[in-house]
């Protein structure tokens, strides 16, 4: 807006002030739940029952965090969410890598090696983005059983990969559509084959869309609860399921500070990913729409 030429009349300044005011209020509104969570998680239990939701912590303590991580009870066991936190990573990392890789190859093949019906294949894959999770629960459980992957980490990864491919294919296809076909033609004439062209020509320029795909997939899979609860055994449960169990396990008094700390722990990785790569996410989403 700095390059818009406008005379600074008092009315314009007032309007600007109102504008900023509204934006600040909206910003506070969005950040508030997290502030409350963070404050509650470092208050001792006594302070929570005495004070209000918004009162500042008087004697901050990390005890709820350590308890949430290592001691809190999730159902019958009292080992905290720490172990499940690593379970989530062990599930998310391979699932993200595999779905992004397959999506990239799909997008590349669908745009640069068109075949009869490639548009139909893409349309059908796109359809996968709109299938509600609940619909596939039973068939998927059956399939995993046939494959011998029931209640295993590999099974859960497979489910997330299958669901993720629809999205990652969409991302990569739309990105590669904007890359000139002549590049691929030139590489073919130079003697490069399918994988060589992908590896040497396409992949080096795909950074923006890889970031988008990784962030999207990481957030989706990390935050997933339904598949986690349906297709995992106790020792492979992701942190989202553990968080649910922790909050629902009653041992007399409700420990809101521990609940909040556990929720923060569960949300931390996605927060970190957004903070570190958020600007690339926005850049990647708009890449191709405007020619640089």
């Amino acid at each position: 807006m700095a390059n818009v030429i406008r005379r600074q009349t008092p009315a314009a300044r007032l309007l600007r002030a109102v504008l900023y005011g509204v934006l600040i209020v909206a910003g506070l509104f969005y950040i508030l739940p997290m502030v409350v969570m963070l404050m509650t998680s470092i208050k001792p239990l006594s302070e929570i029952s005495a004070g209000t939701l918004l009162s500042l912590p008087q004697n901050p303590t990390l005890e709820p965090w350590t308890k949430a991580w290592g001691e809190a009870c999730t159902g019958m066991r009292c080992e905290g969410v720490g172990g499940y936190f690593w379970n989530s990573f062990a599930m998310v990392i391979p699932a993200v890598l595999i779905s992004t890789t397959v999506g990239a190859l799909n997008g590349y093949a669908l745009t640069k090696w068109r075949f009869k019906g490639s548009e139909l294949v893409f349309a059908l894959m796109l359809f996968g983005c709109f299938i509600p999770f609940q619909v596939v629960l039973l068939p998927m459980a059956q399939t995993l059983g046939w494959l011998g992957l029931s209640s295993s980490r590999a099974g859960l990864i497979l489910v997330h990969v299958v669901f993720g491919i629809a999205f990652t294919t969409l991302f990569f296809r739309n990105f590669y559509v904007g890359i000139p076909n002549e590049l691929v033609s030139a590489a073919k004439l130079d003697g490069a084959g399918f994988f060589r062209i992908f590896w040497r020509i396409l992949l080096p320029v795909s950074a923006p869309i890889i970031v988008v795909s990784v962030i999207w997939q990481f957030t989706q899979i990390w935050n997933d609860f339904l598949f986690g609860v349906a297709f995992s055994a106790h020792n492979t449960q992701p942190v989202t399921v553990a968080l649910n169990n922790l909050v629902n396990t009653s041992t007399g008094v409700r420990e809101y500070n521990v609940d909040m700390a556990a929720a923060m722990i569960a949300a931390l990785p996605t927060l970190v990913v957004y903070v570190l790569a958020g600007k690339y996410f926005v850049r990647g989403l708009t890449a191709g729409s405007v020619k640089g």
Partner: protein
Amino acid sequence: MAALEIHNVRKEFGSERVLKDVSISIDSGEFLILVGPSGCGKSTLMNAIAGLEPVTSGNIYIDGEDVTWRTPAERDIAMVFQSYALYPSMTVRQNISFGLEMRKVPKAERVGAVERVADLLQISHLLERKPAQLSGGQRQRVAMGRALAREPKVYLFDEPLSNLDAKLRVDMRTEIKKLHQRLGTTIVYVTHDQVEAMTLADCIAVMRDGNILQLGSPDEVYNNPVDMFVAGFMGSPSMNFIRATLEAAGDGYALRIATPDEDDLLLPWPSGRNAAGLVEQLNKPIILGLRPEHFSEEDVRLSEQAEGTLMEAKVSVVEPTGADILLRLPLGEQEITARVGPKCAIAPGERLSLRVDMARAVLFDAETEQRLA
């Protein structure tokens, strides 16, 4: 042996026939230009030669070998693309040597080849840059360097100059011609620019609607066009087409051009010229083709020995280009363009005497648009 031979190539996309039975043959070291308006099939033919697009039927031979069903890589060709298609993540050096690397040429030879083409194209100082850091003209050079590094049997150029500004285009055109003369390479070049075609080619193929209308030297195509389309497409400003009627005049023929408000203009057909087939056209409408330079201003001092027929008309527009002057003036029912010397002092509205060089005029059938004489 022919470096490139195309035998009865057809290409269909669904029911649409993009190439209809195209045959061309060029010798090693020849510069062939495919020229025509957009949608004439010239780029499709180029892609067929490159192997990027399979043909529906017909055969393509490179150096005597049937390559119709070989992949682009197996055909030993290199191509320069309209958009240059430089690999964005690679430096100029990597771009040039990529093709050699894919063909498993040893590193030392690759370095040598890069140095050679960089010298040739004067891009040695750009070797470590990425394509994004280059200007349009520099990218064009790198794209040519990439093709030249491999020394293939045939080079394909797909409108390589159309993304450059006017001045650079003329410079690069000269440079391509120099390169061809120096290296003696076989080149197939696609363009829609008839000036490029005239200046560069040994052989021009004028295409329209998937057919080759005429295949010949620039001189043949320009001075001896087979039909009105070729005649109108080649040359700028384009040929004037004038409605006339063929009449018998003495032993020979003459063309009568009906002129409103004035006496009809009668242009005698030179007796030395071939008149076979004109008999059937007697007293029928016919199209007379005259290029702007077939007109010249009447010079009184030379009028004794000057050839050609005199005509007079009122000039409507005067367009000086510097090197010469283009005049628009009515002839018969249409307005024509004439090219006269830069010294010609004429203002719009004035009358001017012009000499018409009927020895170079061409005649077309008014219906079929085919050449008659």
